[in-house]
């Protein structure tokens, strides 16, 4: 949208900044060349700009570099893309809590699709189990138990509430991020630039839904398990010390596909679609079902709706 002159200026500034940083980084690396300073320092990703400020060419460079890097690392043909949002699309998600049986199929489908660390364990979806009786006081998160372990589910007199990122319209996490490493894209997906996050975890303190997970240790996914279809802002491998979370399976939904959790659900409790399309599944359920969002009093305006089917 910027004029050619602005564009030029931006590039000139970018070039001098990169040079400055390169010098600074070399110095820093010399100082930090201590033993045990983890893996080889990746200068290219260190000098990379914020995704929102990169030119298309710069993004292509990054995608190319990462595709090569991961292909080599995992011995597979890995492609990293950065497919942008479609016109006139804002995503919404629906979850039928009258159907969910708490089987956690979605949790593990998500782990596999989105290359979440197996060890140390990271899971974007968390399923809370509630006593039906407790819910007569309203859904109080303190009554929820994510660690239930029954022979079979649903357990008697229990109901289940799966949670992940709510992709809030007014997301507190993006507001507090000091570096602007997380933001809401035009299609409503709250994304994270994993190369820009500094790991301060302010967003985790700000998120009312516990959606954000931190890489406390070095994340680990075996070459065998890695999903080679990656999106730069979605399921590509994360590094230690950054925050990650559900991206509505950005690598799938921007190509028109359903999210992985939805396809894994054995009871069809999960619904997904375009909130701007009056004929979409999501608009149908908003119109015809009783829906609610969690912690509505916080005015975060989630785009993740629970409903009674």
């Amino acid at each position: 949208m910027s004029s050619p002159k602005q564009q030029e200026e931006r590039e000139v500034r970018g070039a001098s900044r990169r040079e400055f940083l390169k010098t600074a980084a070399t110095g820093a690396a010399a100082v930090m060349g201590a033993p045990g300073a983890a893996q080889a320092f990746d200068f290219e990703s260190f000098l990379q700009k914020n995704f929102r400020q990169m030119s298309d060419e710069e993004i292509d460079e990054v995608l190319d570099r990462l595709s090569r890097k991961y292909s080599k690392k995992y011995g597979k043909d890995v492609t990293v893309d950065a497919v942008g949002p479609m016109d006139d699309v804002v995503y919404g998600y629906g979850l039928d809590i009258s159907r969910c049986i708490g089987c956690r199929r979605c949790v593990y489908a998500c782990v596999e699709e989105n290359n979440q660390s197996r060890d140390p364990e990271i899971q974007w979806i968390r399923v809370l189990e509630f006593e039906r009786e407790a819910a007569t006081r309203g859904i109080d998160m303190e009554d929820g138990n994510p660690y239930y372990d029954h022979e079979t589910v649903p357990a008697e007199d229990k109901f289940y509430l799966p949670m992940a990122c709510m992709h809030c319209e007014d997301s507190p996490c993006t507001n507090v991020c000091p570096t602007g490493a997380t933001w809401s894209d035009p299609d409503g997906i709250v994304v994270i630039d994993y190369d820009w996050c500094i790991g301060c975890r302010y967003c985790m303190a700000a998120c009312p839904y516990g959606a954000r997970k931190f890489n406390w240790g070095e994340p680990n996914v075996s070459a065998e398990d890695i999903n080679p279809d990656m999106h730069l802002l979605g399921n590509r491998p994360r590094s230690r010390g950054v925050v990650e979370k559900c991206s509505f399976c950005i690598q799938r939904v921007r190509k028109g596909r359903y999210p992985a959790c939805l396809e894994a659900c054995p009871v069809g409790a999960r619904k997904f679609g375009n909130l701007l399309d009056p004929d979409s599944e999501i608009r149908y359920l908003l119109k015809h079902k009783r829906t609610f969002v969690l912690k509505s009093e916080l005015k975060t305006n989630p785009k993740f709706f629970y409903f009674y089917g």
Partner: protein
Amino acid sequence: MASNSPDPEDYRPPGYQLVTWVILGLAVVVVFGLTSIRTDHQPDTSRDYPSRPQLPDVEPVLLPPPPMDDEYFPCSDCHEDEPPNPIERELEDEHDEMDFEHGTLWCLDCHDLNDREKLHLADDALVEFEDSWQLCTQCHGKKLADWRAGVHGKRTGHWRGPKEYRACVSCHNPHSPPFKPLAPEPPPLRPENITPNGNVRLEAAHE
């Protein structure tokens, strides 16, 4: 110490204190005013993405229901030789291993007395087994609307593009429609079980 600490008496133009307190007051107001910054309707902007038209949508495709059980099908293998008995009753000798849990319905409410390979609707029109959803939705009309809209039942494939959906009997046993319990996947690790040495399951340490 007194020698090098400044003495305010050295410098006190008229109104200096006033200026100081105004600065202080302003600073406090500015700082406290921050709390009222509107945080809704995110001011931070995303990337300037190029326009990208929506993908073409495609009508959903109904997946065929799972094949009928060879043990019973075709029904006429047995029923051909049996005289039809339209009287509602508990089955005792045949089909007694099956669960029947579908309200007050009994066999011939759906199965046709005369044409055993078919089902019948309320108006006696015959329906193939593959089209059994037409029969189900006579009663479950609300579900029909939800199912058509993609809100009851499961769709797979593309939210925008080719997609499949399923007939009632793909998920529900028509003789006993409620979902059967499943074994859940393992629970998540507790935070204390994520250690510098990786995941540690310390079952005994909790509960």
